[in-house]
Structures are given as structure tokens and as C-alpha cells.
């Protein structure tokens, strides 16, 4: 009998806790803090956190992040439409920015912000601005491939001799951006053919990190990723990159594609002023220096701030000329779905 009473008391206590919990929203979320700037963030969380914390320190404005992937968030913003709670959208690659821009959902960026970044890193419509950049690379295992055996172009990887020797992560927005550059430079027919050949030749990985790991362990001879994954691992324990080196494709090859990370302010932003301020901060000297000083190893683009000294300087690279707002993400996904890659 006493046990039953005890259980009843416990049950009531439990119900009271439930009611209390129901009433309060979790701290640090948008529900709890309606004045905070809402950032839909597809950039690496570690990077945006650095920017957000520095921004809050300087201006006192709280920032709340919704983390996701490029196209997931872009399509989510599109689906949300006028009622989207987002103020700022940050991406890792530009095709996702094009999706939102083409839906007419971006507001004009302040001209002062646009002036901080060279024109080739932003869209010429003034709807979004470049915040960082990354270069496509072919990472290869130094024991299994000599300098003479490396591919000269990313298009070579479709050839039969490369079957089973290279890997990539087609499920991620990063690789999809690289394919979108290929689509823009080589055309639909060649890209579709390359993707069909890729399906036969490549080994699938879930992300760029696992591609690097696979190359390093010798499971595959090489892989297509972005440069900073190698540098990040080198700065930490080196255990996923001690047998690997990077090849930057030159001669304006599609494989040398320099992908621009973009930032935009939503037309329906509830905190438009703070949103503009945030973008100005990121592309300004403080924000770009924070990127250069961090362990993120992406290239800086704004305010003439030099990138992390460990990186191969941008001036030494020879990337192809691609207009970032022309990259067609949905078409790429359609082509990749047809090829059976995603």
C-alpha cells in the first residue's frame, strides 16, 4: 500500500516537472530568444560559431544558428516562403545561394558590404556576397601513386583505367557544387557522360572526411574533395592525412574549381539591420582575420585579408572562370539521380 502511495506521489511530481518543462523553451534557442538573429547555417558549424561569438562580443546582438546542409536549408527556405523565420543564410557553396536567389527571396546587400569583397566572389545582382572560398583538389595516397601517375584533368577520372581507384562523396553539397561547375564549363552532355562513368569507376563515401580517411589508408588511390579537409587534419593529429598529398588541377580545368561560400539576407528577415551588420562583419577585416587565424583553413575573400599562411596562396592557383550565380544545383541533382549516384 505504501508503495502504491509512493508511486502516486512520484507520478504527480513527474507531472509537475512536465508542466514546468513544457512552459519553458530550451535556452539558447530561437523559441527562447525572439530578439536573436536567426541564421540558417550550412557552413561548418565550428566556423560560423567563431563568427557568431565574435559578432555578439562586438555588437551585443545574440545569434541563433540552425545548422543543416546547403540544399536542405535552401529548399527549406523556399518551402517556408514568406513565413520563413530566417534572417541570414550562409552556405558552403554557391549553387544553394542561386536556388534562393532565383526564388526572389534575398534582399539587396548593403553596398558597403559588397565593396569589401572582389566582384568575382559575389553575384553581380548584389543579392548575396562571398564570405569564404575553397578549392577542389585531388587528394592522393603518396605510396600508391607517383607524381607521374596523377590525372591531368578531373575529366580523366571517367576513363576506364581509373576504375575502382578513386572515391568521392556525391551525397554532399560539396561534390554537387563541383559537378555544377563542370556542368557550366563542359555542358550537359559531357557532364552526364562523366557521371555515368563515375558510377562505374568510383567508390562511395558518406562525406569528405571519410574520403580523406579512405585515401590515407590506401583503400583508394585518390579522391575528389576540398582542400581544407587535408589542412585541418594536418593541424590536428595527422592520422587521416599522413600518407596523403594534394594535387591542385591547373590550366583552368573544371577540377580546379574554386567554390565560393555565400551569405545573404532574406527579404522577409525580421531583424534586417542586424542581418546586414552580420554580413558586413563577416566580410570585414575582423571577420576575415578570424577565419585566417582559425583552424578552419578556408580561403579568405574579403577586405584584402591574407589567408592562413599554411595554405598554398590563392594567387598561385589557376581556377576556371565561373559565374557563381549561374551554377544550377537542381539540374545537377537531377543528373546525379539519373546516373544513380544519389
Amino acid at each position: 500500500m505504501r508503495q502504491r502511495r509512493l508511486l502516486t506521489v512520484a507520478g504527480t511530481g513527474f507531472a509537475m516537472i512536465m508542466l514546468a518543462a513544457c512552459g519553458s523553451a530550451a535556452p539558447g534557442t530561437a523559441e527562447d530568444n525572439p530578439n536573436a538573429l536567426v541564421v540558417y547555417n550550412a557552413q561548418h558549424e565550428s566556423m560560423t560559431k567563431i563568427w557568431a561569438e565574435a559578432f555578439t562580443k562586438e555588437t551585443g546582438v545574440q545569434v541563433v544558428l540552425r545548422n543543416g546542409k546547403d540544399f536542405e536549408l535552401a529548399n527549406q527556405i523556399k518551402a517556408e516562403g514568406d513565413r520563413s523565420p530566417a534572417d541570414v543564410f550562409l552556405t558552403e557553396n554557391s549553387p544553394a545561394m542561386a536556388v534562393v536567389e532565383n526564388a526572389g527571396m534575398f534582399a539587396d546587400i548593403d553596398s558597403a558590404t559588397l565593396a569589401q569583397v572582389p566582384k568575382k566572389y559575389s553575384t553581380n545582382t548584389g543579392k548575396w556576397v562571398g564570405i569564404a572560398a575553397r578549392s577542389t583538389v585531388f587528394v592522393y595516397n603518396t605510396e600508391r601513386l607517383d607524381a607521374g601517375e596523377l590525372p591531368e584533368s578531373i575529366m580523366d577520372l571517367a576513363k576506364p583505367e581509373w576504375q575502382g581507384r578513386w572515391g568521392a562523396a556525391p551525397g554532399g553539397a560539396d561534390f554537387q557544387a563541383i559537378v555544377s561547375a563542370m556542368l557550366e564549363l563542359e555542358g550537359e552532355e559531357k557532364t552526364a557522360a562523366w557521371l555515368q562513368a563515375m558510377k562505374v569507376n568510383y567508390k562511395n563515401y558518406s562525406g569528405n572526411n571519410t574520403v580523406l580517411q579512405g585515401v590515407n589508408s590506401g583503400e583508394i588511390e585518390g579522391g575528389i574533395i576540398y582542400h581544407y579537409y587535408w589542412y585541418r587534419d594536418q593541424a590536428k593529429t595527422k592520422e587521416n592525412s599522413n600518407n596523403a598529398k594534394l594535387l591542385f588541377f591547373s590550366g583552368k580545368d573544371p577540377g580546379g574549381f574554386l567554390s565560393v561560400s555565400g551569405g545573404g539576407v532574406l527579404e522577409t528577415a525580421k531583424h534586417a539591420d542586424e542581418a546586414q551588420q552580420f554580413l558586413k562583419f563577416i566580410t570585414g577585416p575582423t571577420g576575415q582575420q578570424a577565419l585566417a587565424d582559425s583552424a578552419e583553413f578556408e580561403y579568405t575573400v574579403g577586405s584584402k585579408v591574407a589567408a592562413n599562411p599554411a595554405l598554398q596562396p590563392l594567387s598561385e592557383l589557376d581556377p576556371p572562370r565561373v559565374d557563381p550565380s549561374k551554377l544550377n544545383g537542381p539540374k545537377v541533382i537531377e543528373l546525379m539521380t539519373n546516373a544513380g549516384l544519389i
Partner: protein
Amino acid sequence: MAVPVSLLGLIPIGYILAESYALGWEGIQEALFRPRVADLLGNTLALVATCVLGCILLGIASAWLVERTDLPGRRVWAAVLVAPLAVPAFVNSYAWASLWPQFEGLLAATTITVLSYYPFVYLPVAAALRGLDPALEETGAALGLGPAARFVRVVLPQLRVAVLGGALLVGLHILAEFGALQMIGYETFTTVILVQFQSTFNGSAATMLAGVLIVCSLLFVTFEVLARGGARYSRVGAGAARPTVPVRLGMTRWLSVAALCGLLTLAVGVPAYAVARWWSDASGVDAELLAALFSTLQFGLIGAAVTTLAALPVAWLAVRRRNLASTALEQCTYLTSSLPGVVVALALVTLTVRWADSLYQTTALVAACYVMLFLPRSLVNLRAGLAQAGPEMDDAARALGASELRRLVRVTLPLIAPGIAGGAAFVFLAVCTELTATLLLAPTGTTTLATQFWGHSDALDYAAAAPYAAVMIAISAPLAYLMLEQSRRIRRR
């Protein structure tokens, strides 16, 4: 009151049907009838087949060893064999992937899922074995059957319900499994649905794949019902069942102990070692971990409370007013819970974005999703509790002059309190380790233990993921123990 709860459960199915209709037959063909989908179907069904088989074999073998033989330390084994329930499947996968990154493919997927899910078969089979009447086996012996034949022809058929129920649970878990399989790169429908979601949000490809998943789930459930059959599994009266004589293991005794030790090392030892090893590299407890812990506990409590409240009317109807309508309502809830979390979440996201904007990205929506996914866990416990609290008590109280409210508070609630507590505990455990639906539905800025763990391990930052894994295991352990206690109380129906 029970009707809206059950109908809530049909939302995801309705959503998929509506989308399919909008897409048209050609659209469906384009999305589904291609080699990639055939690949995924093959992968998924192969894994289900191997894992279910493995779990059945392991579950029956270990249950038999613990309940029916003179294995040394049986009581300890009975508790310890349930331990893998405390380790979520994606933590298990993280342990194997971080220690042996080359371990992949069907073998890896089968190993990890069998080690994570065999308790689902072990628990009901052990409970069933406990309740068996030895008289039936003795009759078999008297009629000339040897021990092996007795096991196959007398014992196994009586275990049919337990084995099938456990196997169904395992099969449904595999259909819904995301984290564990994504980490070793084994592609199934659910992993691809999430990848598609990350590329297209709620595109038609993701929705169609979800539709295939629903069909698979329904097929499994139907198959289980058919396989169970209509045979009678109970005796007319409880009679005076004697305890069974344990089988002497003799020579194979220490071999069995070694085998069980090996099983536990793989199922619990490997994750424990991996977490400890990576945690030694990590920075320790920080504000991020505490924030995630707070959110997880909050979601857990809200989920458990709301689900229990929602389950009460359905359970009441199912037990006290048993008819076709109440049974139908109950079956509706089982239907939705057999769907993978990602499908339910996808449906809710699309619906709220289009028509119920104020609910979008709120804790309330997350709670609604948890109700849909985990209602049966609460329901099963509540039903058992209500069944034990017979209406006679209620009638006696009424005869003594108590009002309806007084009866509810002083008679019914205390009697079903263990059932409520048991159900709430199960739901709490499920919510704390839920990954996919939370990823899709949680309000911006929310972090839970599972989502943070996933974010770090996806980036191969094993050291950062380790503390989250450890906390999840610490939360799950007492609840796994609760499950064991609950199953111990089950007697023959």
C-alpha cells in the same frame, strides 16, 4: 478522446498517399523504377534477413541457456544479457567504425545490428520460457521424443509468439535505422531518404522512397500477424505448473560461458572501450554538453508525459470496452509507430510548413512526433496495468459510495501507476536516443545528445563525440534495467 490520437497516427500515411497522387503514375515510375532503388531494396532486405535470423538464433540460444540450463551465474547473466539495450545502435556503430574504419558492407552492418538488437528477441523468449509448463514436454518424452525433438516439436512452437514479436521489432528497427548504417556506409532506404532530404528538402524522390518504406513496414506487420496464426497458446486453467528441471550442460558448460562472455564483449565491451578511449582525448564536460543534456532531458520528459496522457484513453477503451472500434483504434497507433522516424518527421514538416505555420519548428511539434512514434510503447504497459486493475475494484468502490473522481484518484490511478511508470520510462528512453526526427523537427538552435553526437562523429571527430555517447549510455542503463524488471513480471497469459 482516443479517436483524434489514433487518427493523428495516420497523418504520415495520408501525406505519402497525397503526394503520390499528385505525382501521378509516371512520376512514381520515374522515381521508383530505377536500378538504384532496386539496389537499395536488395541491401535493405538482405540486412533485414540476416539480422533477424541472427537475432532469433542468438536470442533463443541465450534465453535457453539462461532459463533452462544449469549455467553458472544464471541470475547475473539474465541481467547482463540485456545490457546492449543501454547502448544505442549508432553508438555501437561509432565504436566499430572508429576502431576499425575498414569494417564495412553487409557483414559489418549485420554484426552491429545483431549485437544491438538481439535483446528484443531475448527478452520475450526468456519470459516465455519461464512460463512454460514442463508437463507438455514430459508428455512428449513419454511419447518417445528425444531431447532435441522435444525442443523442436514442443518448446519452439510455444515460443512462436515471442519469437515473431521480437523479430518484428528487430525488422522494423532496421527499416528505421539511420545513424548506425550511415556511419559504416551501408546504404538502405532510410539513409538515402536522409541524403535526398539534405539535397532536396522534401522532394518527390525522398517522399517516394518513404512510401516504399511504409509498404515494407506494413508487409512485415502483416506477415507477423499471419505467422502468429490463430492457435491457442495458453492452458484453460493455470493449474499447478511445476518448475522445470534444468538441463545439465556437463562438458559444454564452460564453452557456453565463454560464448556468452564473447557475445557481451562484442556487444558491450567494444562500445565501452571505444568511448573510454576517445574520451581520454577529449576536453571533458563543457557548456555545449550541458545544454544538449538539458534539451534531451526536457524532450524526454515532455515526450514521456504527453505520450502517456495520449495513450490512456486508447488503453482504457482497449481494455474496458473491448469491441471492434476500440481494437481498430489501437491498431492504427501500431501502424504509425512501425514507420521510420524520418518518414513521420518529413510528413509533419511539409504539412506544418504549408498549413500550420505556428506549429513549425516548435517543441510542441516535436512532442507530437514522439507521440506518433512511441505511443505503442506506452500503450503496451498501460494495457497490462489496466488489465491487472480489474473493474471489480472500481465496482466495489462505487458500491461503497465513492464519486467518479474519487474512484479515479484513490482506486484506479494507484493500481495502474506501475503501468504508467513503465510506459513513461520506455518512451523517455526512446526519446533520449532519437536522432532522425529530432534532426528534422527541432527548433532552430536546439541541440540534443543524439544530434550533437551525430554531428561530431559524422565529421570523424570521435573524441568530441565520446562524452555524448557516454552520457547517453548512462541515461539508458537504468531504463534498460527497468525493461528487464518489467519482463520478469510477465506471467503466462
